[in-house]
């Protein structure tokens, strides 16, 4: 009797999961099929005559292309480098110092950044950027994004840094190395996987950012792809499915490639600290 019941409940579970997955998978499937269909609609269907016409049209839109291939790279790349650099140095410092309340500081940072994030901080951030003359600059966007991503990044890096035994650095100190040299020769090579994780995570987050760029940037020339997507809407405010899907496809591809790259190079072993 028990066997029957468990098989039955397993079947229900699988059916339920499939239904949920279908729900999430549909938009993705649409993204894979729609761009190649010159007469695409909201339905997920294989194109009768697959063609690259949509892409050709998209590439004619200078504004959108510049947005994607230049602005997005600047913003996401900038955020990636800044977050990786600052988070690594910060977590290294936090890990190696003995200040009272150090652990609480990190947890409080994490907490605050999740509570006072994005929308809630919009007005103060705008005012701050305005006074610093960072409105409508990529630098401003990168800085704000870094600020938002940093607490979680530091939190992630700390595990990697903590896993380096202190005796490594002490041995290097005795060998005659100074702190910067120790960081370069010993600490950094050993946390490189962690830095890669944080860098990619920051890149992916910044790549999809919409709110901060749309608030902080003014001129169309500076807008990233998330904003430029709206240039493929008709004057009436409805999306032009062919172009939107093609552009979204282009927008998603870099992240997909990155995912495959990371999977190939690191194999998703990074949670739990890597020991080579």
């Amino acid at each position, binding site marked *: 009797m028990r066997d029957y019941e468990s098989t039955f409940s397993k079947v229900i579970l699988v059916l339920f999961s499939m239904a949920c997955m279908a729900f999430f998978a549909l938009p993705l499937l649409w993204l894979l099929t729609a761009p190649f269909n010159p007469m695409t609609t909201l339905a997920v269907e294989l194109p009768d005559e697959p063609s690259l016409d949509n892409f050709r049209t998209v590439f004619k839109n200078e504004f959108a292309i510049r947005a994607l291939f230049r602005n997005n790279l600047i913003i996401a790349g900038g955020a990636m480098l800044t977050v990786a650099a600052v988070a690594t140095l910060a977590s290294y410092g936090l890990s190696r110092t003995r200040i009272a309340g150090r652990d609480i500081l990190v947890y409080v940072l994490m907490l605050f950044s999740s509570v006072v994030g994005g929308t809630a901080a919009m007005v103060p951030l705008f005012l701050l950027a305005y006074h610093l003359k960072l409105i409508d600059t990529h630098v401003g966007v990168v800085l704000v994004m870094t600020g938002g991503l940093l607490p979680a990044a530091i939190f992630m890096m700390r595990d990697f840094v903590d896993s380096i035994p202190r005796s490594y650095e002490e041995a290097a100190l*005795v060998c005659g190395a100074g702190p910067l040299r120790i960081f370069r020769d010993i600490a950094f090579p050993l946390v490189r996987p962690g830095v890669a994780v944080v860098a990619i995570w920051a890149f992916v987050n910044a790549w999809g950012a919409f709110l901060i760029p749309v608030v902080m940037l003014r001129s169309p020339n500076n807008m990233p792809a998330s904003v430029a997507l709206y240039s493929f809407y008709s004057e009436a405010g409805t999306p032009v499915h062919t172009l939107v899907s093609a552009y979204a496809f282009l927008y998603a591809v870099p992240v997909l490639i990155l995912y495959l790259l990371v999977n190939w190079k690191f194999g998703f072993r990074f949670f739990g600290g890597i020991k080579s």
Partner: protein
Amino acid sequence: MAKIQLEHITKKFGELTAVDDVSLEVSDGEFVALLGPSGCGKTTTLRLIAGLEVPNAGRIFIGDREVTGLPPRERDIAMVFQDYALYPHMTLLDNIGYPLKVRGVSKSDMVARVSDVATELQIGDLLERRPGQVSGGQQQRASVARALVHQAQVFLFDEPLSNLDAKLRLEARAFLKHLQQEVGVTAVYVTHDQAEAMALADRIAVMNHGHVMQLGHPLDVYRRPANTFVAAFIGSPPMNLLPCEVDIQAGKILFEGDRALDISGYRERWGGALKNGRDITLGVRPENISISATEIPGSIPSRVYVVQPLGGEWLVVTQVGAELVSVRLFQDEAPELAEHVWLKLDLDRTFLYDKNGDLLQ
């Protein structure tokens, strides 16, 4: 080659005093072991000498130079760590040569020097491997090689043999002693293993709770412990410590259960320090007791508790009142003992300790 001097060194970590007013001098070329249980302050003392910790009070001299405020790299020291601290992402060649690289020595010179030292330590053909690819013993030797390559004046060892298995430990111990004697460098060696300290050191500093309990040649520390802590810590099996009372008039030492030890002929040995007193502890090593089947002058009655064969000797554990007394018998045949025997103590090798645990002399 240099001497080391610690003057009234104190180190606190918050409320905890790890090293309490320790003064110590290590002569040029001497091998001093800091011995004690976990938390006694020996590793902290070593780290203070290295410059990895800064003392709250006191001064440290290496050679004739005061080094108290100086970072490790300016102290001309080399250190071998318990976990070897070999960098996993570098080859052994780069690991051992790191001190030279940091000092700007040319690559060819570095390779030459590292090869020399590595060959001496029998790891010369492993230089292209990473630490993770060699055995524990080889890692340990690589760690020592890195210290040698420094050509520093002082060598500091932080329990370097703890991570090796028992057999390897004995081999490595002999190797380290030979090395230190050959190179003749001043060495400070931290360990919790008293046999290791006895075997390696020219002098041992036994530490507990941040204090040096006794400092001396291994045989002095062994034969004449200055307090009950040292008495119990050094020697395996440890010294027997029996609570007793002294009665000078009667010339006896009294144990629980009215057992008495006649010391009337030995009063001069303890001189004026011997007074009537309770809370006295008598200490005698298991090899300084002999067993008699009959009552003989100067012996204590006891009951045989258990007899253990140890191979080259026998360990007979007896009961005196509630206390267990161990006796080592060096003989091949099994000792034939009745249940009640008498323990004859070698009074020249017997010590009395007052209620604070200090030697009465």
